[in-house]
Every structure is written in C-alpha cells, then in structure tokens.
C-alpha cells in the first residue's frame, strides 16, 4: 500500500500525479473464502478490515451489489457521538468513539474526524429530566457528557435563538465535547483501501441471490457472479437485511424506513458544532465545505425508495429556522433519503441467527454511521470466534422474545 502523507503529496505533484496507485483492486471472485461479508458499506468494510488486522483472517471477500460505501454511508449526516442512555448502548458507541479517535492514523486515510462537540437540546421540563438522566448515566459509564443551561448553550452557539420568544424555548442541553462529525465517504474508502492492502477481495457489482445451507449451516452463497463457498457469512446490509434474512429462511424484527437529509448552499463558517433537537425535530452542523448539513426525522412507513415525504423536510426546516432565525434567507440546495433499518427498541442487532455460521449486523436505525468502526470491530471478533463479542452480546435477536429490550428511543428519538 502506498503510504499517504504530506510529503508524498509533494512528490506526486512533481510527477504530475501520474504515479498514484489504485486505492483498491478490482479482483475476480475466488471460489472459496474463509469468510464473506455481504455489504460493502462502512460497517462491512470495517468488519473486513478488523477481521484481517485483528484476527489474521485475510481470505475474505466483501460482496457489494453496487459501489462501495454507496448506501447509508454515502447518505448520512456524519454525526459521531456516544452519549447513549443505556449501559449496553453507551458501551458499544463509546468503544466506537475511541476507535474513531485514532482511525485516520490507523488506516492511513484522513477521515476528517472533527471533535467539535454535539449539543442535544432540551425544550421542556421532561426533556431536561431525560437529559440529566442520560448525562448522569454517561458520566458513570465513563462517557464525557455534561448538562448545560440555556446560557451555556448560547455561549457555545451564539447564533442560536436562546430567547423566550421561541415557541419551545431552549432550556438547556447535554454536551458531549468529544463527539463530532467525520467525512462519510472517506470512512468507506479508507477502510476499503486498508482491507484491500491485507488482501481482502472487494467485489463490487456482486449481488447475493441466495444462501447455500446444509443441515442448518451456511456453506456458501449464490451470487450474480457465480457461487462462492464459505462457512462464515456476516450480513451487514442495513436496509436490505430483511430481504437477505428472507433468503436464509427467517424473519428479523426490522422495518426499513426512509430517513431524509438536506444541505444548504455552502456558506462561510458560522456554526462550528453539532446541534440536535429531538423536541422540535431537527439537527444541524456545518461541513468543512460550508454546507449546513441538516437531518430530518424518520418517515413512518416502510420504504426502500431512498426518498421520503416532503412534509418531513418541511418540519425539519421549520425547526431549524425556529432555532436559527438568521438562516431564514439561507437556501436549501439538495435533499435526499437513505433507508434505515430500525428495531422496535431503536438498538441494533449483532447476532447469531438460526443458521449456523450466518451472522447479522443490522438494525442500526439512525445510529449507524457513528458506530462504523466499533460495529466492524466487535462484529469481526464475533465472526472470528463464532460467538458474540461481549459488547455485542446484549444485542442478540433473542431479546425480542425474552423482552430484554434496550429502549433507546429517548436517545435516538430523532435521527442523527
């Protein structure tokens, strides 16, 4: 792998950039792999990378029906945080956040992880109770977090309307300074390049059409490019997980919903932290290019169309202008949608399945991007050992029968 550095950049410039290597190969599928990851998004690529790096398993293929990182990785609003309420979720997301903190160096690809802090606003007394509960839990779990009052919010974001004029005045917020944003595409590409360097085959335009299952154990997959043998399969296909589970003969407690986002035109920097509000339904940050990146709520119906309802976007912009009246004359450039796979308790599934050797990593809902390295890391361990990583264990499918749900609706309420 060509190492990237500032020095290297100068060297290449002098050669008119004619010597850059491919960031990853475009190999032909082999007939057998030790493990197959279905889904070449951030989570799948991270899983492949950590399988190779941490567990020495390099005879691995990532099967992607389209292009790498083309799903929710390419469509999210890039927020990274770990201030979740319940111990199990906080542990998983904090594990991920720690990996984010050294990720660019680890994979030699600048994912531009920017720890600019995240504010979760409270607008009612109950919001503030929930915030205090979450912040207290975070601190005792070792997650950085604090409660701010309205004045504290205004100090961090001077342009926010902190007055009583607002319909739902801001009463305070939780503040996680280590949280932030990252460059979404770079995460997929960086993991892809690093996994490829270990010999992992990244197979794009390769769609799984079925599983080969013998005596309740997976022994291979059918694809549009031929059959491939393997005894370990990790499905990391987000919104399409239900479709793949169907191919393997079981159901998942998942629904796939549209989740929309939008950006303004690029503007000079004016907002240098991330602001989220569950109560008025909107969240916002400003990218390094200058766009205001704004996320909307989940649409209530099932949808794979990568688009949602316009009314949802309207509500989100109402919330943004309510919080930031100065943005009224700013203009919205583009909107788009992703497909989020949501569980009834707003927590993911990292689990064995009724089929031996077949594992699922899905149901991240709105929490997927921030979990990318952590999810890949614990899922790789799960695949390598055949047993759930301790951080993954609470997220088994069984919980929907036992009733041991981990209800994160409060923390996950609106998308982020």
């Amino acid at each position, binding site marked *: 792998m060509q190492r990237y550095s*500032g020095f290297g*950049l*100068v060297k290449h410039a002098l050669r*008119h*950039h004619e010597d*850059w*290597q491919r960031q*990853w*190969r475009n190999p032909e599928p082999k007939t057998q792999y030790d493990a197959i990851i279905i889904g070449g998004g951030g989570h799948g690529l991270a899983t492949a990378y950590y399988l190779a790096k941490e567990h020495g398993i390099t005879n691995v293929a990532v099967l992607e029906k389209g*292009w790498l990182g*083309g799903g929710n990785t*390419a469509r999210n609003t890039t927020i990274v945080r770990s201030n979740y309420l319940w111990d199990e979720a906080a*542990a998983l997301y904090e594990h991920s956040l720690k990996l984010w903190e050294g990720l660019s*160096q680890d994979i030699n690809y*600048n*994912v*531009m*992880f*920017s*720890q600019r802090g995240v504010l979760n606003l409270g607008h009612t007394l*109950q919001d503030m109770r*929930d915030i205090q509960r*979450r912040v*207290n*839990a975070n*601190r*005792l*779990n070792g997650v950085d977090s604090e409660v701010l009052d309205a004045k504290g919010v205004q100090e961090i974001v001077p*342009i926010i309307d902190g007055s009583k004029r607002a*319909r*739902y005045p801001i009463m305070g917020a939780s503040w996680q300074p280590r949280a932030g944003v990252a460059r979404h595409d770079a995460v997929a*590409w*960086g993991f892809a390049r690093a996994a490829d360097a270990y010999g992992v085959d990244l197979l*794009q335009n390769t769609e799984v059409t079925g599983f080969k299952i013998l005596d309740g154990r997976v022994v291979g997959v059918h694809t549009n490019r031929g059959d491939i043998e393997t005894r370990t399969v990790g499905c990391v296909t987000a919104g399409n997980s239900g479709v793949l589970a169907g191919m393997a003969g079981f159901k998942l407690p998942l629904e796939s919903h549209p989740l929309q986002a939008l950006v*303004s*035109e*690029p*503007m*000079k*920097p*004016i907002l240098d932290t991330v602001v989220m509000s569950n109560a*008025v339904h909107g969240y916002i940050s400003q*990218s*390094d*290019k200058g766009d205001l990146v704004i996320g909307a709520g989940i649409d209530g119906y099932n949808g794979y169309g*990568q*688009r949602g*309802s*316009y009314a949802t976007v*309207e509500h989100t*912009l109402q919330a943004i*202008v309510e919080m930031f009246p*100065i943005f*009224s*004359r700013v203009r919205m*450039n583009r909107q788009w949608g992703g497909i989020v796979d949501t569980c009834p308790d707003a927590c993911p599934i990292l689990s064995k399945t009724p089929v031996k050797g077949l594992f699922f990593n899905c149901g991240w809902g709105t929490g997927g991007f921030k979990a990318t390295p952590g999810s890949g890391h614990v899922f790789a361990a799960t695949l390598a050992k055949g047993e759930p990583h301790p951080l993954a264990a609470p997220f088994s499918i069984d919980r929907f*029968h036992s*009733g041991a749900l981990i*209800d994160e609706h*409060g923390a996950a309420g609106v998308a982020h």
Partner: protein
Amino acid sequence: MSQSTKQPNRLAAGGSVDRTRTLKFTFNGQAYTGHPGDTLASALLANGVDLVNRSFKYSRPRGIVAAGAEEPNAVMQLGASEATQVPNVRATQQALYDGLVAYSTNGWPDVQKDLMSWIGKLGAPFMPPGFYYKTFMAPASMWMTYEKYIRKTAGLGRSPSEPDPDIYDHMNRHCDVLVIGGGPAGLAAALSAARSGARVIVADEQEAMGGSLLDSRDRLDDQPAHAWVTTALEELAARDNVTLLTRTTANGYHDHNFVTLHERRTEHLADSAPTIEGRRQPRSRLHRVRAGQVVLATGTHERPLVYGNNDLPGNLLAGAVSTYIRRYGVIPGRKLVLTTSNDHAYRAALDWHEAGHEVVAIADAREAPEGELVEQARKHGIRVIAGSAIIEATGSKRVSGARVARIDRDGFKVVGPVETLDCDTIASSGGYSPVIHLASHTGARPTWNEEVLGFVPHTVKGVTTTGGARGVYPLADVLADGAEAGAVAATAMGFEVATEARHVPQATVVTEGAACALYQVPHEKPTLRAPKQFVDLQNDVTAAAIELATREGFESIEHVKRYTAMGFGTDQGKLGNINGMAIAARCLGKSIPEVGTTVFRPNYTPVTFGAVVGRHCRELFDPERYTAMHQWHVEHGAEFEDVGQWKRPWYYPRRVNGRLESMHEAVVRECRAVREHVGILDASTLGKIDIQGPGAREFLGRVYTNKWAKLAPGRVRYGLMCKDDGMVMDDGTTSCLGENHFLMTTTTGGAAAVLEWLEMWHQTEWPELDVYFTSVTDHWATMTVTGPEARKLLAEITDIDLDRESFKFMDWREGRVADVPARVFRISFTGELAFEINVQANYAMHVWKTLFEHGDKYGLTPYGTETMHVLRAEKGFIIAGQDTDGSVTPEDLGMHWAIGYDKPFPWIGKRALSRSDTRRTDRKQLVGLKPRNPEVVLQEGAQIVFDPQQTIPMTMVGHVTSSYYSPTLESGFALAVVKGGHQRMGETVYLPMVDGTIHEAEIVGTQFVDPEGARQNV
C-alpha cells in the same frame, strides 16, 4: 465610490430592456447602471465587468458563463443591509432592481487583487482530488488545527447575522395539468390542455414566459417568435381555468405528482418585500401542487466544451451569447471565436456578426459541417475551420486568444498544427442536455440516447415530457410535441381535446446538420500535464481530476463524483456532469451508459429556507392550546409550562415586598395552601373521552389492566393502560355515567394517542363490541378544588350534597356550581379532599371567578403543574411519561392492585407480563427515596448505585424519576426506579453527582404523606 454611467457593452438597439429608464446598482462597492429588463448578469456584462468571482479551490478569476439556472460562477452575495443578506444568488437569475447591492462571494481582499489566487496558483499542483484524505494526518492531535484553517476557505456567500425581516407563505394548489416550463413546448401544451377545459397551471422560472422564443431567430406564423408568445399568453390569461406563474421554479417533483413551485414574488423588486397599503406581502411563496398530470417542458441546457483554461472570463456558452445579445441588447466582447460540435450554436456567431462585431472564426469539430446556419455564416464571410476545436484559451484575467487545432476525436489527440487566434470572447457548444432533473427526483433513472447525445427521462407515471426535455429540437416539432403532450395529459384526466385545440403556429423550418459527440477537447499534452480543463467550474473539478480518480480505482461514476466533488455545487452540475461522465468513460474505456447514469435530487435550484417554512415559524411554529381560563392565568402572572401543545400554568409567582417570588417560594406557598387550606388547579387539559354503548364496559376491561365489570353508575375508578408488550402507556380515571356510558380521562399529553388507540382496537380487533368513543376534552373545563377547606368552599356555591357519607371518595355527582350545571368528581391527585368540577367550557370563566369570590376567606390559592407534581409525588401517584418510560410494567410500579390477572379476557399487556424478562425479580421497580440529608433535593435523572466505591464504569441500578422539596415533610424526597427495589426497603443507595458529591438515600415506600389515605377521605 466612482459612478459609471456608461454601459460600454450595451447595444444601441435590440433586446427587451427598457433603455428609457435607468436602474442603479453596486457590485463590489462600485456603482453601475442597468435597465429594467436586465438581470444582474446582463447588467454586469453591459458594464464590461469581466471578473465576477474567484473560484472555490484555486481562486482562479471567473466570469459569467451562462444566462440561466446553469450558471456556475456568477454566484453573488446580495443585500443592502445585514438582515437582508442573501448568499449565493446567481446573477443570471436575479432581475436588476434599483439599489441592488451585490458582492462577489470569494476573493480577498477583493476579487481583482485576490491574494488567495497565489495560494491557488502555487498550491494547485498539491491539491489533486481527495488530497485532504491523504494528508493532515500527523500528528493526530493537529487535525482540529488544520481543520480550522481549511474551514476558513470554505463556503461561497455568508449567512445574514440578523433575523429575516420578511415573511413567506404557502399556497396549496390542485390542477389537472401542471405545465413546467413556459417555452414553446410548454405554451403549446398549456394551450391544448386549457382549451379542453382542464384546470391548468403553467410555471416558468424566468422573469417572463417564452423560454427560447424570447431570443429566437425563428419566426412563427410569419412574425417574430416573441409576438406569438404574447398572443398565447393573452389567450391563457383570459381563461378562468388557467393559472400562470412566472418567476416560479418547479424545484422538486415528489411522489404521486406532488410538485413544489417556488415563486419569487418580490425578489425582483427590492431587498426586502415592499408593503402594499401598509400590509406585508410574502417575499416568496411556495406552491404545493398536487397535479393530476405533469407536463415537463423544461427544455435543454447547453453543454460547454472542455478545453484548457476554459474557465477564463470571456468563455461563454454559445447560447448565452445569443441570449445576451438578443434579449438584453448586451454584447459581452468585441472579437469572438466559436467552438462547436453542432449547427445550433452558429446562432451565436450570426447574432454577434449582426450586432456589428467581429467573428474571428468558427472552429467546428465536424469534418464537413453543413446546414442552413453554417451556410449563413459562410455567406457572411465568417471563417469556418472544420474538424477543429479550441484546445486552449489564453489570457490572464480575460480571454486574449484561442489556440485552435485539428483534432482526432476518436483517437483523442491533436492532429494538426496549432493556430492562435486573437479574440476576447470564446463561445463554446458541445451540444444540449435535456433538462430531466424533475423526472428523476423520485428515483427513475434516465437513459442515454445516442441520437440526442444526452440522457432522456425514463417514463414516470403521470408525467409527460415534451420538447427539448425529451430531445426534440426543431421548433416546429417542439410546438407539435407540446400540443400533443398537453392533449395527452388533459385526456388522461378525462377531458376531451378537440382537433382544433391542438393548433400551433407555423414555424420556419431550419435544416440543421447532424451534431457530433465531443466533450473534452484533446490537448497537445496529456490531460494530467495540460493546462487545467474545467468540467465543474464551481467546484474546480478538472478533466485531470477525473482521470486521476479513475486511475485510483474510483470506477463507478458515483465514486468519481464524490471523490472529485463534481456536481455537488449549487448548480448541481448542470453544465458539467455529462462532460464528466464522458471523460470518466474515456478513461475507463467504456461508453457513457456503461459508466452509469445521472440522478438528480430536489431542489432543481436552491430554495430559501424561509419559503419552505412559510408561516410555520415564530408565533405560528406550533399551535398553542389554551384552556377556557387561560386569560385569568395570564392576568394573574402565571408562568407557563409546555405540556404537549398546551400551555399550562406552571406556578403563580406573587409579588412579595416588591419582589417576585422564585419558583421554589411560590411552590412552597402553593403546596402549603393545598395541604392546609384550599387550592385550585386548572385541569382542563386532561384528555376526556365519552364512551357509549352496551360494549363499553367489556371494552374497558380489555384495554385497562384492572377490572370494570362492577363499577356502578355514580362511581369512578383509576385505570392503568398498557401496550401489548406489557409496558405502561397511560393512566387516568374513568367514571361510570350510566350502565352503558363512561367518561374516560387520559394524561394531557396522551389524549390524542389514547383515543386513536381505542379506535384502533375497536375498528381492527373487536368491531363486534358495540361502543363509540368521542373526544370531549374541549367541551368540558375542569377545575380541581382541593384541600381541607374544599368542602366548605364548594358548599357555598353548589346545590350538591357534599356530605362525606352521601358523596363518597371516588363518587361523582351532578348539580349546580355557581348556578352552572356541573359534574363534580370526588377524586384526588393531591391526597387531600378534592372535588373536580366539570362545566361546559363557555361557562368556565364564570365558575372559576365565582370560586375565587367565595374562596378568598378560605385562602383559595391557584396552583400550577409544579405544585401538582409535588403533591402527587408525596402520595406516590405516578406521572405516565415521567415515572415511566416505556420500559416499566404495572408490576414494576408496585400496582398489583390494579392488575386483574383473573379477568376472563386476556387484556392488553397481560401476556407480556409473563415473559422471562418481565418476570425477573431484579427489574427496576418504583420506590420512594428519602435523602439522608433532608436539605438535599436529589436531581431528577440522578443515577443510583449500590456501591459508591466502585470505579468508573459504575454499575447503575436505577435512577430518580421525580424529586422535589416537600414543604409538608420539610425535606427533599424522590420517586425512583431501583433494581429489585421492592425487596430493598430500608436499604441505602448512593447517587454520585457530576460535581463529585455522592448523595445517600434510603429506599422507602412511595407514599410519603398520609399513607393511609385518610385526608382524601374526610
């Protein structure tokens, strides 16, 4: 500031500007003039302003390229005052008005002497696509510092820093046929549809309808084309069934033919919307249109050719040159070289020539150009260089020459000597791309049409594409196609379209030769070493960048776009995307359709947030719901709490010794009043549902956890409602009014959800039960009179026998209160003697005031939600949503008494209570907490641990759900959920706080005051 009154590039005649009137404007602090009818762009060109901006990444000088929505460079900061700033306005779409103030969005200290350009020049070689992914990584701690500097270069314009003085609104529209685009195809479609009687809306983004006809050389019915536009518009305007919307852009096409139209109502008039007779009018209006059929008549965008230094000011689209000359009477230079792949672009040279300026040459990429326009050019003596193209423009801040050479298109190389032509303007045309954005907004993928050399839209149900938007170019064909499209759409909606309704004017036929495919023009040097050949001007994406991306393994067009940022600007790649795809295809040795397709997302052009928001902001952001006594609360100084959409009095601070009470002081006073005298609460916000029918009682038994079979008329019972997962969702009292008649109350926030819940179970699972539910929340006003003196007070103004024996706790009675018929419920949420008085809301204020007239002597005190919370918590009464969070069962709450396990019907929630997890004995259970230090009021949300010595991460076993200071106990107290709490009475738990203190508390029962319930029973 100097004043320039001359407009050196304004032609003496021609165009539709009004030369008799002059408008003043400033650009970058310099004063200029223009005329009504100008856009900011045409006025700048008229004034000879070449350099309008600096580019985003390399700070290269940039000029105006286009005349419409596709303009990538002339992106301006507008606004004469701070509050009216608008970032990123395209000068080509901004009508000029008197007093307009515009600035370039990039360039420091100014666009002429831009220092950043040196960084751009020196740094450009080190900024290939994705360079930031490859560097700034060491040391890790420095990224935030690097980023700070990177961010400084971000963005185009700037946000205002003051709130918007303007208002916006929405208009919901419905029509049979929505025609998008008022050019020849659109007008023809509108006419045929309108003549059938269909309701038609025509939207066009420009200042005037007519589209290409406004600057056309063609004649219709032997008149100039624009004359027919006038006739057509007159006919349409005269019809009741037609709505014409100019300055109105169709920005988003959504499912089932829902289209958003953004109408700029005042942006052509002034900085801020002028008032009319003192009334505000919306600055812009968003039309939310539900159309039966949509006709897309959006025309085409011309593609520029990609050659070296094609971004220098003076490089324009050929069509834009024609538009400026013919529509605005502006000629953007003196000496023109045209480089083209098609006949149509020859119009630019002809217009230029006819305006009296020199056309140096036409470099035509085709071997043997032929066609009427080519012949005309030759006839005028214009030099046509066949088989050639401009390979590079020269100049520093403006084009000073064009390097023309013979090229081999298939071999992608220069095959002849290079000739440098002296010129100041280059017009280029690489063909035309149908404007298909809206047709792909719902995910339909366009397909490549080799004949059109462009993507044409895929079929979308309910949408007909017509004219240029589907690759039909000759004017006669466009008109016929438009008329047909309008007829098809109207017919689909059930209208009959007569043959004569499809009549269109006769167009002159101009024979055009076939165009050739040319995107990037080869250069003598390989692409990576050649002068920069720009594909996406706004994002500074070059052909070299695309080539490099493909070398690095980015093979999907989506990867190429993302890696290079191509198409992510405010123009969304209207000029560059197809060229970029063609270049990627060349690099990968594939065809354009093999590389992928192009998709677009709303918006077609950017839309002001304010317009999307409309009136749903400020005071109208969300409904504020009021009770019938609201005005009294306001007049008595209440502070309000938002509960759902309701405004509820939170507490009533009094002025004591000239100072307003704090909340704590007010609440202590209010609590004492209730416990010692009498208080009154406006409880009207509680949800109230009237339930009638012989199946009502059975129904209640199914949706509540407890029993309802024996509740007699005149009696009231508390009920707990679960979802089928066994978790508590709501609670409230339900009264039996008659054998088959009940009045259910719900929490304030849960009212709508509970009603829908009841309807759902009735309609979907148990339709056989004869029962109806009707909301009466708003009909009744409810006032709770509570405290030891409540009976005495109420007795003064009611005819109801309040004797404790005849009107027992959990009874209800009817009678008169303050002469008004009332239902009075003897239920208590405070633990004190209490009467809930319900009267028809129109009489409520009278009753409320009468109570105060009589209540003074008893110390009647209004109390708000905060005091209500303290009093109920002292009694261990839960608030659903505060003490429960969707993970709490009735068992967890210790409310075994409200669970009818032996009821015959398996009520909602029952089964789930026997799952392995809900049976655990160490579930979090509701308990009381008594702080060891009575002065401590535990924080709501404080986490609870058993072992305070444990290091982080600590094992948390629960949290505080409600916590207050109790004036009665003279101590803090709390409700909390604690693991296995019901079995841990008397044990000590610890609450580690953010500031490092650790509070200690004892687990106690949830009833702190009067656990026997004697006080409410007096």
